[in-house]
């Protein structure tokens, strides 16, 4: 408050150093007061200044009072002289001697008996005079300053001070600012008279204590949502263990197909074989593979029950689609269906940054009378539009259980090229007709992986950071909500 009164008196403002000397307190106390006043808002405005001045060092102060070393040498020599050895015993002797010699204040008689003897000449102690000048605040010539600085008698000091002027809400009386609104203030209405400390809006807030959903599962939720929006019903895919029959044979995938190799598929040793099959259907599947039928030449090979019985970890969710379509065919009357699933599938593959032994397959299936290839492309167009992908084109491809088969490509604006985003096709009659579906029913289907769009969405390059125990939990904590179309 003393400071404020001074500021009030001074018209153009005051320097904090002057304030300190006039009130008679340490400058640091004033600096502290300035800072706390600043935090109160616009009571004062303070501009930092720095000034430089020269000060005597401790040695300089000693010299200013007692004279320079060389002057003290001069003073200590009596008229009859002094032996050099005596002089050197004095504290200032050594430094003072050489300076006094070069100033020609003293002379040495080396031939004097009893060793060199020193006699006084005359003296003018300029060093002391200069130091006294500095102490009184006067300026010296650069040359002199440097000479004294070199002798560590002078030092240049920077002093930081504030230039204090009145602020827009200047007042000489201080009211204490409140940090937070309290229930009492609300109850008594005292908040109306209080001043509140301003918030620092630059700082971050306190992170909420919360749980998080896994990014891959967030994307799964969105895909489920899209299918449900499109009227697709979810298939029961909670059966990781599947027989080769449903995984391959029912899909008209021949028994020598490379996908059925040990290198690509996980086989089970326990339980090694499946035991229950719909017998008449199984016979029809066997026939269509080995002999053909339903308008097909078949693959003409020796179809073996033992191969079909082998249990595996399903390599695709299409195994479940096959079970569902078979079930549909057992209805008294066919009804059109739209099915989807998103679940795990397993491949005995070599692992790398983009391949794992298990991943999630997204699959959509539509079964109805008279579906066309144009319908498949139309449904895919609608599906991918919901993912925010509108530019699509289709490439002829091969898949053992679909004909026609189409790879779905979308134009990637970033890469400036077409990239494959999914696979699709029309299930072969050799798959559908043995199930007992009506001949004029077509089934269109498509599939893609869940991991790839998720990695693109969340900018993850290594699949192991996303799926499995090596996940980076910080990434899980930090991942935003998933809107696929934005």
């Amino acid at each position: 408050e003393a400071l404020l009164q001074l500021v009030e008196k001074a018209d153009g403002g005051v320097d904090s150093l002057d304030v300190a000397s006039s009130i008679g307190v340490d400058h640091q106390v004033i600096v502290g007061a300035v800072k706390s006043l600043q935090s109160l808002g616009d009571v004062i405005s303070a501009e930092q200044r720095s000034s430089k001045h020269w000060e005597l060092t401790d040695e300089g102060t000693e010299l200013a009072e007692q004279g320079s070393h060389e002057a003290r040498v001069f003073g200590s020599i009596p008229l009859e002289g002094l032996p050099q050895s005596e002089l050197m015993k004095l504290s200032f002797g050594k430094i003072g001697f050489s300076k006094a010699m070069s100033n020609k204040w003293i002379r040495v008689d080396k031939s004097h008996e009893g060793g060199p003897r020193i006699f006084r000449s005359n003296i003018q102690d300029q060093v002391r005079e200069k130091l006294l000048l500095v102490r009184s605040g006067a300026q010296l010539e650069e040359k002199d300053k440097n000479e004294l600085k070199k002798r560590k008698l002078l030092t240049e000091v920077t002093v930081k001070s504030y230039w204090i002027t009145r602020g827009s809400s200047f007042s000489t009386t201080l009211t204490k600012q409140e940090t937070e609104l309290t229930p009492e203030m609300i109850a008594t209405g005292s908040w109306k008279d209080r001043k509140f400390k301003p918030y620092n809006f630059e700082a971050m807030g306190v992170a909420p204590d919360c749980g998080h959903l896994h990014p891959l599962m967030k994307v799964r939720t969105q895909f489920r949502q899209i299918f449900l929006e499109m009227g697709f019903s979810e298939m029961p895919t909670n059966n990781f263990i599947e027989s080769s029959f449903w995984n391959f044979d029912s899909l008209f995938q021949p028994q020598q197909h490379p996908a059925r190799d040990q290198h690509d598929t996980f086989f089970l040793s326990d339980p090694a074989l499946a035991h229950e099959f719909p017998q008449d259907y199984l016979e029809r599947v066997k026939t269509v593979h080995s002999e053909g039928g339903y308008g097909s030449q078949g693959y003409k090979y020796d179809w073996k029950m033992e191969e079909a019985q082998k249990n595996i970890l399903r390599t695709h969710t299409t195994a479940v689609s096959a079970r569902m379509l078979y079930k549909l065919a057992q209805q008294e009357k066919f009804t059109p269906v739209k099915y989807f699933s998103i679940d795990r599938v397993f491949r005995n593959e070599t692992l790398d940054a983009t391949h794992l032994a298990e991943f999630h397959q997204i699959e959509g299936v539509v079964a109805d009378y008279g579906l066309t290839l144009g319908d498949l492309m139309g449904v895919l167009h609608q599906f991918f539009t919901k993912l925010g992908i509108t530019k699509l084109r289709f490439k002829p491809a091969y898949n053992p259980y679909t004909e026609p088969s189409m790879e779905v490509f979308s134009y990637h604006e970033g890469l400036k090229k077409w990239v494959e985003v999914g696979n699709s096709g029309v299930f072969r009659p050799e798959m559908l007709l043995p199930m007992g579906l009506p001949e004029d029913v077509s089934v269109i289907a498509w599939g893609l992986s869940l991991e790839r769009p998720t990695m693109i969405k969340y900018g993850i390059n290594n699949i192991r950071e996303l799926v499995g125990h090596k996940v980076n939990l910080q990434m899980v904590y930090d991942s935003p909500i998933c809107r696929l179309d934005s």
Partner: protein
Amino acid sequence: MPTVGVKRDILFNALGRSYTDEEFDELCFEFGLELDEITSEKEIISREQGDSKASGASDVILYKIDVPANRYDLLCLEGLVRGLQVFKNKLEAPRYSRVSPTTGEVQRLIITKETAAVRPHAVAAVLRNITFTKERYDSFIELQEKLHQNVCRKRSLVAIGTHDLDTISGPFTYTAKPPGDISFKPLNQNKEYTASQLMSLYKTDSHLRHYLHIIEDKPVYPVIYDSNGVVLSMPPIINGDHSKISLTTKNVFIECTATDLTKAKIVLDVMVTMFSQYCSQPFTVEEAEVVYPDGKTCIYPELAYRKEKLTGEFINRKVGISEPTENIAQLLTRMCLLSQPTGAGDEIEVEIPPTRPDVIHACDIMEDAAIAYGFNNITRTTPRTYTVANQFPINKLTELLRQDLAAAGFTEALNFALCSQEDIADKLGKKISETRAVHISNPKTAEFQVARTSLLPGLLKTVAANRKMPLPLKLFEISDVVLKDETKDVGARNSRRFCAIYYNKSPGFEVIHGLLDRTMQLLEVKAAREQGYHIQAADDSTFFPGRCAEIFVHGKSVGRLGVLHPDVISRFELSMPCSALEMDIEPFLGHTAEALLTHDVPMRESIKHSLPRLGDSQQPLPAPPASTKTVFGDLKSQEGLKALNDFLADKSYMEGFVASQADASVFDAIPSTPTQTLQHLWR
């Protein structure tokens, strides 16, 4: 998908024009090929072995083209060019014909009965007066290799041998002998070896060692001799050096030995149709006679043309276009399927050449018409299929529960369904025999030995991989484990589990216990001994003694919770106390879901579907279900309808916000139009 490498300039020369890379890529895309890579021999060597090795290599530009796995006719330059030229209407598909030898006798291959034990089938043919160049020769060798890798299934189904016919003399004998009795100078070796010696010689051969297993354990090995006892080949391993072909070879004898006759015929047809192009009479192939042990004879190659009839309407209807019959015939002809309208209505006769064994059904022909029409020229349409969506009940419950568990402060983890035996047994202080785990017979590493029977190891491993994260770590997972179950057709089933852990400086049993209470609250189960849930002390080697409890819901055990045993914590390389909870969530589904949950093979019985197709208004409504009893009482009674009406007063659907099977079944259960007073039922 096989990849074929062709030299760009030779390809363009054969195609009669050049393309920019983009243009060629576009052409491939349209035709169903993929220009996978543009490279050179030099680039490949420098990438694989370093720049220094590549210095002398050719920098002629190579196109690597991905070919669909069923198109054996496109596996070499000759086939690719032929296919694309016909597709672009620049060439008519050639007609392949089998001819008798102009001079001398037909070549004969006699199969002896010994082959039955190892590789019973063989087919053969002769390419007469062929002119090889370096490029043609390389392509000829390369095609054999591609066929071996693909349709031949790494030579296990079929193996091809090609020989300079002028160095050998028929008739040839295909027999099988004990390995010690076979001795010859194999291709590119300078001395004779017995078959047994060869097998050990090739053990270290980077290429051939992959085929040894096919015959290794057989008592007899297949071998082909000429009439002078010269060994042509020991299929499926190696040919003899004596009959090897070279650039100057004029007449080629091709034999294919096989365990699958159909595939052998296909392979022979592909070989001769591709390379008869270079014979003095192009596209003619000299026949060979194969004599079976029973004396039966067959003439090969088959080179069979098959005729199919279909209608233009069929193609239009399946593809979703409306092209005149004439145009469809032209489209098919461009795919090497020579087609003509028969004049009877919109009937088209399609001829399938021997190069297209992939065409086995009318749908394959339909696809070719669609490719020639251009997939991307087909108008995209919306199917008129009307359906109501249902969620799979266990997934619906999982989705809802996940959200609220995250809201309870736990973070979702996502772990692998496959793991090591150690993870689910030893590390948890259990014996593998107690786990009901399914075992994988061919895991590449220990990480894939079994399917998990518990979600706990995955969560503990997740914590171990995230030790740097601030404590406490609160994690959960709702996912499937797999258990052996003899009542299922495959002998195993999934079980949906919920697992959570709390990892901190103190065990925090109360935290996990609190999460259980919250979960039960979410699942509408009260804390009560009889008609609710309770926990009671249990012994479990995974948990610290005296710190484990079993969770009972309506008197049935659904899982356990407790403080983990210090040994379990250390085995997962963790150092802090940890409490955990794992339980089944399927018991909370309620009875609506039970029918859908099973994976038993469905019986051959009718399942009533309640939703008539849109536009099928004349169709009689499905018969009402046998029982009209629901949770709202019997819907035949007025009281029951009243209860349902009250229930629906603030709801549009029976379950959640999505119309479901439950709605349909309730709707079915209402015998007739409800009276106006019960207006909520009208929705």
